C-alpha cells in the first residue's frame, strides 16, 4: 500500500508535467511560457524526490525555478515578448487531450504486454561497488570514507569529470564576458528613485542573510548529507539576484561590487579547486612517496591522504569538504558576473555599440 502511494504520486507528477510542457510549447506569450516551464520544473523536482535523488532536487530547484526563469525574463525584457505565430484554442485543447491519452494508453499497452519497465530489485555491480565502498572503514584502501554516495562519486571516484565540467562552466562565463567586453556602466544610487518600494527592500534585508546562510550550510555539509558545491552555489546565487531585482544595479555600484571583483572571487574559487586536487601530490613530493592527482584517501602505493576523521569522531570527508567550499564560491560568483552583465541598461549598450570600435578608457 505504501509502495503504491509512491508510484501513484510519481505518475500524477509526470502527467502534470506533460500538461505543463504542452502549455509551455504552444503558448504564444513568452512570459507565460516561462511560467509554465517553471511549473514543469517544480513537478520534475517533486518527481526527483520520489525517485530518491535528493542531491538532484537540491541543485534543480534553485537552478530551474529561480535562475533560469530570471535569466529568460531578462532576455524577454531586452528582446521581444510575443512570438509571431498563430495558434488557435482548439490546437491547444486537442494536443492536451491527445498527449494525455497517448501516455496512458501506451503505458497500459507496454505494461500489459510485459515489456514495460519493472522496478528491479537489484542494482548493477558497479553501483553496488560504489555503495559498498563509499563509507567502509574495514577496507580503507579502496574506500572514500564519506557517507554521502553521490558527492564521493562526484569529487573522488570520478573527480576528473567534475573538473572538466567546471572548466565548461568557466568557458561559458568567459564567452559571455567576452561578448559584453568594453561595456562598463556606473551610476549613482538614489534611494527614493531606484529599486522597489520600502516594504520590498525591508523584507529583502531580512531574507537575504537567511538565503546566504542556507546556501553556505548546503555547501559545507555536502559530504555528510545531500548537498555539495553546486547545490550550495546555486542556492547562494539566488541572494545577489534578489538584491539586484529589488535594489537595482546602482546599489551594486554604490557598494562597489563590480564585475571585476566577482571575477576575482570566481578565479580564487577555481584556484582553490586546483590546489586541492594537487595537494596530495605536493605533500608527497616532500615525503618522497607516490601520489595521485585528485587523491582523497591513502591508496596502494600512495600512503598519504586527507584526514577523514577529526577530533571527537567528526567526519571530515577528506578533500570533499574543501572541494565543496571552493566550488560553491566559484559557482555563486560566476552567476553574479552574468547577472551584473545582464542588468546593464539596454540603451547604454546600444550607445556604446553605435560608437563603434573598442571603448576607450
Amino acid at each position: 500500500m505504501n509502495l503504491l502511494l509512491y508510484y501513484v504520486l510519481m505518475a500524477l507528477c509526470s502527467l502534470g508535467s506533460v500538461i505543463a510542457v504542452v502549455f509551455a510549447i504552444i503558448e504564444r506569450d513568452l512570459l507565460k511560457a516561462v511560467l509554465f516551464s517553471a511549473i514543469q520544473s517544480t513537478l520534475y523536482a517533486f518527481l526527483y524526490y520520489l525517485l530518491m535523488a535528493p542531491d538532484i532536487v537540491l541543485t534543480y530547484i534553485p537552478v530551474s525555478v529561480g535562475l533560469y526563469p530570471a535569466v529568460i525574463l531578462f532576455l524577454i525584457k531586452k528582446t521581444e515578448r510575443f512570438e509571431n505565430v498563430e495558434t488557435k484554442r482548439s490546437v491547444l485543447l486537442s494536443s492536451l487531450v491527445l498527449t494525455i491519452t497517448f501516455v496512458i494508453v501506451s503505458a497500459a499497452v507496454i505494461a500489459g504486454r510485459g515489456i514495460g519497465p519493472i522496478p528491479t530489485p537489484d542494482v548493477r555491480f558497479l553501483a553496488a561497488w560504489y555503495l559498498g565502498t563509499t563509507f567502509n572503514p574495514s577496507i580503507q584502501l579502496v574506500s572514500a570514507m564519506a557517507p554521502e554516495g553521490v558527492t564521493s562519486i562526484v569529487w573522488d571516484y570520478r573527480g576528473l569529470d567534475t573538473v572538466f565540467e567546471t572548466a565548461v562552466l568557466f568557458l561559458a562565463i568567459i564567452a559571455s564576458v567576452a561578448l559584453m567586453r568594453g561595456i562598463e556602466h556606473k551610476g549613482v544610487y538614489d534611494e527614493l528613485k531606484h529599486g522597489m518600494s520600502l516594504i520590498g527592500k525591508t523584507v529583502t534585508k531580512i531574507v537575504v542573510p537567511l538565503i546566504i546562510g542556507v546556501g553556505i550550510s548546503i555547501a559545507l555539509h555536502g559530504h555528510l548529507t545531500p548537498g555539495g558545491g553546486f547545490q550550495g552555489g546555486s542556492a547562494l546565487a539566488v541572494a545577489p539576484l534578489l538584491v539586484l531585482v529589488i535594489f537595482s544595479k546602482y546599489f551594486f555600484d554604490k557598494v562597489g561590487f563590480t564585475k571585476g571583483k566577482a571575477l576575482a572571487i570566481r578565479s580564487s574559487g577555481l584556484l582553490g579547486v586546483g590546489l586541492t586536487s594537487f595537494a596530495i601530490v605536493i605533500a608527497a613530493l616532500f615525503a618522497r612517496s607516490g601520489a595521485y592527482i585528485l587523491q582523497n584517501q591513502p591508496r596502494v602505493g600512495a600512503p598519504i591522504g586527507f584526514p577523514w576523521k577529526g577530533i571527537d569522531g567528526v567526519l571530515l570527508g577528506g578533500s570533499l569538504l574543501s572541494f565543496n567550499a571552493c566550488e560553491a564560491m566559484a559557482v555563486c560568483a560566476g552567476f553574479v558576473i552574468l547577472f551584473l552583465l545582464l542588468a546593464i541598461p539596454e540603451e547604454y549598450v546600444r550607445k556604446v555599440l553605435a560608437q563603434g570600435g573598442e571603448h576607450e578608457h
Partner: protein
Amino acid sequence: MNDMASVLDWVLVLLGEVLVSIGVFFDVVAAIGMLRFPNFFVRLHAATIGAIGGAFVPLIGVALIAAGCDFLGPYRWFISGAAAITAILVLMLAPVGSHLLAKAAHESRAAVVEPKVVDFLEEDRVRGETR
C-alpha cells in the same frame, strides 16, 4: 490502540487536522475567486488569501500533526520544525510578493482599475507626489 497515543497526541493531531481543513476551505474559495472576480487587483487579493489561508495555516497544522504522531520516532521533530519554519517564511514573503505585483501592475498600467469607485494612487501620481 492503547500503545499508540496519549491524550496529548490525539489533541495535537485533531487540532492539526482542523487547521488543514480550514486550509482546504480557503484554497477552494481562492480558486473560485480567481475565476469570478472582475479586476486584476481583486483577483490578486483572492490569490493571496489562497497563499496565506491555504498554505500558512495548513503548514502549521502539519507541524502539529507531525508532533503528535508517535509512530514516526525521532523524525517527527524534523518534519514539525521544517513545516513551522516554512510557514513563517511563507507568512513573511507571500504578502510582499503580492504588494510588489500590485505596485508594478498599477505603475506600468498593465492592469485596468474597473469597476472603479476611487483611485487615490492614480490621483497622487497625476499630482506628481509618487512615482
